């Protein structure tokens, strides 16, 4: 199955589950979620992001004071990371990765407490894409995979993702 088909299937599943779920709010700092989408751009041309655990929409409310850089604005529209293969961004991403990620995923990203980030196995299929990687880093996954959007700006997260991608390409 392609990643695209996996995403579609997952979104459909999330819709089914939500339809049967009782009405109450979910944890996290975001307000109660809107109806989940399949990752397609919303009406304003912005990409919708969804939590890897339950498929609910992620509201980008962490660090409201942060500057939305050109790269972030572009990512919101395309779901493609403009920092990929950018040496300066990758170097900056390495510093952030070593600070926030290496304890669990190791310096070479082969994983210890957290999973290997440079192989082709994905606990959540969507993390094979820039969009999915952003979703899990920004809003968190399970347990200790916290919502790092509370600690890093979105611009910093994109640089981390570019660095991880550079490790994978080595």
């Amino acid at each position: 199955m392609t990643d695209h088909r996996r995403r579609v299937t997952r979104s459909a599943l999330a819709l089914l589950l939500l339809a049967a779920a009782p009405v109450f709010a979910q944890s996290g700092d975001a307000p109660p979620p809107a109806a989940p989408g399949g990752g397609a751009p919303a009406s304003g041309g912005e990409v919708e992001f969804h939590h890897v655990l339950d498929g609910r929409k992620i509201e980008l409310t962490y660090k409201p004071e942060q500057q939305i850089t050109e790269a972030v604005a572009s990512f919101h529209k395309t779901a493609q990371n403009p920092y990929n293969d950018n040496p300066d961004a990758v170097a900056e991403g390495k510093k952030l990765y070593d600070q926030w990620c290496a304890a669990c995923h190791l310096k070479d990203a082969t994983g210890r407490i957290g999973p290997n980030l440079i192989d082709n196995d994905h606990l959540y299929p969507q993390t094979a894409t820039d969009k999915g990687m952003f979703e899990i880093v920004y809003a968190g996954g399970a347990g200790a995979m916290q919502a790092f959007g509370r600690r890093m700006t979105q611009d910093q997260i994109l640089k981390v993702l570019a660095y991880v991608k550079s490790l994978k390409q080595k």
Partner: protein
Amino acid sequence: MVKRTSLLIGTLAAMVACAAQAQVAPTKPDEVALPGGKIPGAPKIALVKVADGFLDPTNVTNANDGSGRIFVVERAGTVRIVDKDGKVLPDPFLDLTKINPLGTDVQTGFVEQGLYAIAFHPKFKENGYFFAHYASLPFNGDGVVVRYQVDPASPNVMTPERVNGTAKVILRIEQPYYNHNGGQIEFGPDGYLYIGSGDGGWEGDPLQAGKDLSTWLGKMLRIDVNVPDDDGRAYKVPPTNPFADASKERLMSLFGITEEQFAKIRTKSKPEIWAYGVRNPYEFAFDPKTGNLFIADVGQNHWEEILFQPAASKGGENYGWPDMEGKFCHPMTGDPALANCAVVGVLPAAQYPHQTPFPGAKELTTGYGCSVQGFGVANYGGMTGVYLAGDWCTGRVWGLGWDVGAKKWQLQEMMQTDLQYTAGGYDEQGNVLAVNANNFYLADQGPTANPPGALWRIVPADQVPAGATVARVKQ
């Protein structure tokens, strides 16, 4: 002692009536429960948020005084009160950062250090006593257990003067390293104070503390704090502690003594030891209905374990560490199924793997964790004596329950959430509570700077109040 005796009699009566239901610790490795079990009658559960905004919460408890208050312990050295309406009171109940003119009294330099737990005296309502266990900064991280007394005129706030004026150090546990310092303190149904004491840290138990009876490290301790202040002792050793008699110095007799009698002479043993062979019993809980004890013993590289001790226990159990890692021999060098391992001590009731269950194993994609944090024992919503625990890394919530029909333990993954659990406890109604933090190793900005955590109540999913916030769950 009277209470424990009564409980013992009650428990024995119940055992006679329902012999088939008796919960027992496994005696064979294949009886140890693994993930994949199903607890009969266990409902789908949900975590309902009670309150949030707590700074690195490390524990939670109640005073059992009818006030309905919940006390959330914060790592930096503070305790917050959540009142019966779910409101967090503005001033902390206890603030150990303000009692020493030279600065905080609590060592928080490593993420495993800080204020670990508080416990209220069984007669708190009459005497106002409560106890705290924390890593002391002046004592270079040693764990101190201290008693305080609440001012009846100020039931929700201990002023620094009140803290210093009533503080009585019960004991100090020397800590060689900054991890595995244990933490939980709790009064048992026998009225004695139980202390979870880790092996002192590093990894691999370099001091071999778990099996060294001459140290408090790597032990469950039990002491009697009901000592008059003019006694000269901070606590007494319960005479029924397993090494209370063995530890005494005595005149030597060589002849006419059986080997069994010789084996009861352990003059280097610490009489405070209740059980040994534990690695980091950071959380444990008594079943409020039966008095059974569950210990969430945090594991090393490959397995987490949950220990079961029946209420009728006389103590003295060796839970195996550092010779055992769950039901397997330690250190693990390869696939334990191929190892020739002789079991040492009492086996855990259940264990669950890390992502890599043994060196060289293929990584698991489900059903794993990295650090077990016990919550409490649920006796509601279809659950009978079900010990609930969460995993620090994966946000999984586990239930451990006795399957009466199959006469064995069942370890069931109840849910997987986005929460990083650190501990649990009870409210006054016996509902199981959990707290989560956001303070993982390198992602630790300090106990007052990390993103805040929250307090949760575990309820059957069909009893979630309208409008309540529930934990995000993997679908």
